[in-house]
């Protein structure tokens, strides 16, 4: 079914990744990849499987109960790629935190409330880079400075609850980047933050990426945030990739009815009229996915029989622009990125 592939030069990618937990099909044949120095945006509403795609690929979803198939490929320094899903627990540990850094949604719960910022930074340095405690402590201060925390020598001794939300998320970024990973996985890193802080976090990640050459996977439900940041975007719905393209193409020729709905639902400054457009209905229950198109129930363009009974394949609409729909019609309008 899959027609896209993980490129051989990719820093990280998943190939035909499927996840099943009990009777729920959380992910179904998902493929994407991210190159060194590139930012991949993964977009979808809650329940679309967007967090699951990175968590399951990197061994953060317990198996069992989850059954994970496909491949999760990490580019090696020698140019080869190795599959995380076949690694032992110890091999995976050597990858997580060292070569993959994570930033999660809510910094107020993602940091350990009982440990100082310093300890949470140094434990990874000591384990992965075999630093000595004094050396790791010095590095911890440098890392806080790198993510723009003022007075880092003092802040490093603070506990998470003594920091503001934005500062905590900076600490998370510092932890994620502490061992100089090749890939940064940011799972809704700005959702829990104020709008002004959101912009700061986006700026920090962007400038650090340029400096360090890290590949970034930015997961969000917010097309606005991802659109201003990503090079390429993958749209997930019902555990499947429904559209994938580089950011310009997606914004100018969005083709899947769901992607079009996401754009319409985006609150935009200066739009005439006050009503907020929504996509009616709710995402499908992963335990009872429809046999045909997963978006069938909510689609305004559906063609009755075919869409209901036949699962549409991912087809290439233009260069590197993939869409999974029988009724894909590029919507060429108002390129207001």
């Amino acid at each position, binding site marked *: 079914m899959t027609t896209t592939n993980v490129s051989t030069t990719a820093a990280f990618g998943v190939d035909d990744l499927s996840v099943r937990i009990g009777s729920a099909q959380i992910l179904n044949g998902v493929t994407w990849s991210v190159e060194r120095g590139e930012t991949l945006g993964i977009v979808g*509403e809650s329940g679309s499987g967007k967090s699951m795609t990175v968590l399951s690929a990197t061994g953060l979803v317990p198996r069992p109960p989850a059954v994970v198939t496909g491949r999760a490929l990490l580019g090696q320094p020698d140019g080869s790629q190795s599959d995380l899903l076949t690694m032992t627990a110890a091999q995976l540990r050597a990858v997580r935190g060292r070569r993959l850094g994570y930033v999660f949604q809510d910094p107020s719960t993602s940091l350990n409330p009982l440990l100082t910022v310093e300890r949470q930074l140094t434990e990874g340095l000591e384990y992965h880079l075999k630093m000595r405690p004094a050396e790791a402590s010095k590095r911890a201060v440098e890392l806080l400075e790198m993510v723009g925390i003022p007075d880092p020598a003092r802040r490093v001794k603070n506990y998470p609850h003594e920091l503001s939300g934005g500062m905590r998320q900076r600490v998370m970024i510092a932890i994620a980047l502490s061992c100089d990973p090749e890939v940064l996985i940011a799972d809704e890193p700005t959702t829990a933050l104020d709008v002004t802080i959101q912009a700061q976090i986006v700026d920090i990640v962007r400038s650090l990426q340029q400096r360090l050459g890290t590949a970034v996977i930015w997961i969000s439900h917010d097309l606005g945030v991802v659109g201003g940041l990503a090079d390429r975007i993958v749209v997930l719905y019902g555990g499947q990739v429904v559209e994938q393209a580089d950011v310009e193409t997606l914004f100018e020729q969005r083709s899947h009815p769901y992607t079009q709905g996401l754009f319409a*639902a985006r609150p935009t400054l200066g739009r005439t009229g006050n009503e*907020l457009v929504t996509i*009616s*209905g*709710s*995402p499908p229950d992963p335990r009872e996915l429809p046999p045909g198109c997963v978006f069938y129930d909510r689609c305004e363009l559906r063609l009755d029989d075919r869409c209901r009974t036949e699962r549409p394949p991912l087809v290439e609409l233009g260069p590197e622009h993939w869409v999974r729909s029988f009724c894909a019609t590029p919507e060429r309008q108002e390129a207001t990125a």
Partner: protein
Amino acid sequence: MSAAQVTADTAAVTGSAPLWRRSLKALLASPVVWFCLVVLGTVLLCAVFGEQIAPQSANETDVSRAFTPPGPDAWMGTDDLGRDVFSRVVLSAAPTLQVSVTSVGIALVVGVTLGLLAGYYRGWVDVVVMRVVDVMFAFPVMLLAIAIVAVLGAGLTTAIIAIGVVYTPIFARVTRASVLSVREEPFIKAAKSLGARDSRIIFTHVLPNVSAPIIVQTSLSFAFAILSEAALSFLGLGVQPPDPSWGRMLFDAKSFLNQGWWLSVFPGAAIFITVLAFNLIGDALRDVLDPKTMTKERA
């Protein structure tokens, strides 16, 4: 996305009526709950029809039959005076239930009322009620109950008062906590803005919405009340000899451990199973009624 949220919210509001039916269905689907209902049904049966069920009266002595081990003549054996242990165990159900139902009833009515007033009106009412509750919580329950019975004089009525008093604060605290979270709900504010009287708001809007934790607490309190009654009777402060009670039978059995194990095993087992049934039902109710644990289980 927001449309999806709206449908979920409306479902939660309109779903509150069938929630009770669904909870009841979920409860009755559990074999544990059925076990509890059978146990409690048996205890109730013994309490109401004890005289008919018991083969002998509680104090029919026959020293020639003293310390008969359990057998066809006496299912649970006989005691030092030749009294039938089975009959005495059956006949103890009535005072046990009488004490626990009345005392929990007192604690429930007084505690919930105080909790409603404190949580709804806040201010000085809240301060006074919660300070009193804090003071009450400083005494271990059993000790306070013993002290109350000690000054009022031993007996069934004083045991009821003592147990009722010591379990009142927990109802006040549970109710107040729930009221505090409910009183900020839009439908309460709506009712207030429409000019509804406080008593009407409290009884038709607040009380139904805080009933779930109170129901759970009631079931658990029955378990505690039965344990407390048995302990008081054990110490000679509850049911007065020669009337039978599980607690006092155990106290008497303590002197005859060498002569008959059955004297201590059966009355204790009766307390244990009854308390277990109330505890299990309480837990089952909590699982069914508490939306927090439900979402936790699902996640």
